[in-house]
């Protein structure tokens, strides 16, 4: 344990360098550069809230729908980008893994950090929408990093599992993109949560159960509580968020550790 911490410390500059490489390459040679990280969620928000606001007949007087949407979408995009990037990271890092000794978990972890940096840039867009839609400021907004942290730990855990398995089964890349789409619709992002609460019949029952076991629902809900409703979730929700993160991180670490010695034969 102490040994692996030392190794981590030794290679933390690498983590920093790889992340900054990704950031540099992403924005190099684009005229607007970083502005894309802000423009992209803003444009998505305008299109989707217009369409779904009308389709679902959201009552804008009781729910600040644009703010509701962009907060949820920002967090989900982070999760989706981090896991998608991470799952192929070991394969793309193959040229390095074959030639130098590097702790291999650096690669999925780096992709999660890169997405975290992007998330922080996208937060500017969230702030813009919140100012524009006149969300009442509250001290709970200072806690915005708490749900991000929970979600980050969860994303790292999922990324470790995915990146290790993808080395053996490349199909997972395609499967995961489908799963993410399904997952997005099963998380209250483009529809208000009240829609699910009011749903009747068996399908409503099933939807409610699915959302209750969906970790992302708790992260997104936490994020919205502190940013737009000025409330701090109670101990129970904190424990649930922490639990999901910790369990997946441990499973991820175990799976990765078990599979990593044979990576080199498959990349």
């Amino acid at each position: 344990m102490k040994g692996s911490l030392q190794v981590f410390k030794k290679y933390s500059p690498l983590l920093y360098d790889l992340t900054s490489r990704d950031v540099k390459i992403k924005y190099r040679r684009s005229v607007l550069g970083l502005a894309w990280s802000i423009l992209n969620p803003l444009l998505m928000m305008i299109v989707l809230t217009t369409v779904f606001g009308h389709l679902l007949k959201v009552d804008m007087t009781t729910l600040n729908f644009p703010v509701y949407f962009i907060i949820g979408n920002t967090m989900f995009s982070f999760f989706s980008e981090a896991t998608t990037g991470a799952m192929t990271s070991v394969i793309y890092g193959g040229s390095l893994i074959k030639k130098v000794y590097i702790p291999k978990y650096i690669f999925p972890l780096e992709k999660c950090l890169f997405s975290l940096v992007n998330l922080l840039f996208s937060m500017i867009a969230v702030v813009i929408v919140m100012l524009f839609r006149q969300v009442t400021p509250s001290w709970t907004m200072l806690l915005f990093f708490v749900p991000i942290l929970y979600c980050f730990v969860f994303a790292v855990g999922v990324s470790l599992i995915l990146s290790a398995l993808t080395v053996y089964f490349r199909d997972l890349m395609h499967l995961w993109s489908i799963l993410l789409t399904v997952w997005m619709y099963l998380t209250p992002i483009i529809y208000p949560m009240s829609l699910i609460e009011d749903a009747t019949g068996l399908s409503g029952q099933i939807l409610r159960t699915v959302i209750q076991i969906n970790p992302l629902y708790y992260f997104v809900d936490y994020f919205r509580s502190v940013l737009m409703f000025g409330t701090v979730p109670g101990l129970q929700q904190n424990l649930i968020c922490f639990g999901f993160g910790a369990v997946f991180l441990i499973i991820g670490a175990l799976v990765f550790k078990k599979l990593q010695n044979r990576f080199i034969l498959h990349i």
Partner: protein
Amino acid sequence: MTQQLAVQVKDVEMHFNMSKEKLESFKEYFVKLMKRQLYFEDFVALDKVSVDIPKGDVFGIVGLNGSGKSTLLKVISGILKPTKGSVTVNGSIAPLIELGAGFDMELTARENIFLNGSVLGYSRKQMKERFDEIVEFSEMREFLDAPMKNYSSGMVARIGFAIATITRPDILIVDEILAVGDFHFQEKCERRISEMMSGGTTVIIVSHAIEQIERLCKHVMWLERGKVKMIGDVTTVCNAYKES
């Protein structure tokens, strides 16, 4: 005794499961599993290899293509885990297995120097201190801020060599890399390696250029199909190898 050994390789075996074809999809995997066609061929790349390399030695490894030289180097540097046996390494290792591994061609040379330094596990401070030395040695100052994709392979190799040799590692692993660059730069590389040797660094060299091995090494190991054929001082082994 072990204090004086830089590397101790003990009964190392390296097996590869060579599946006849690479199965990369679930469907293929399950179809084969159902038909019970998941056969693997056991390929032994290293078979009970044992060798002790004392500190400060210059150790050469010779053998034909596919005899397991590079596999052995990878096992020593920790890239591969041996199937059986153990490897004990005393001190830090700088692998020169392939120059410029980990360069990102989209980045500039300046950015790549720092990236590659951290790939090799150097700290930021070390890199900042040695940055000028690296640039000086590689003679690339004027192209420092050009993207690496515009470099020639010789230029890439120069920077790679300069980075890998800035610190004085306890063990330096050299795999066929002295064949890059023009003769002027090759001489410069050899000078730097001899400099390190006199500084007490243990050097492990793999090369097909037998004259180079004869010129630089003290002891040589001859590998044949993953087995140790001969270990001894440079003239005996090299003569036997040349005669075979």
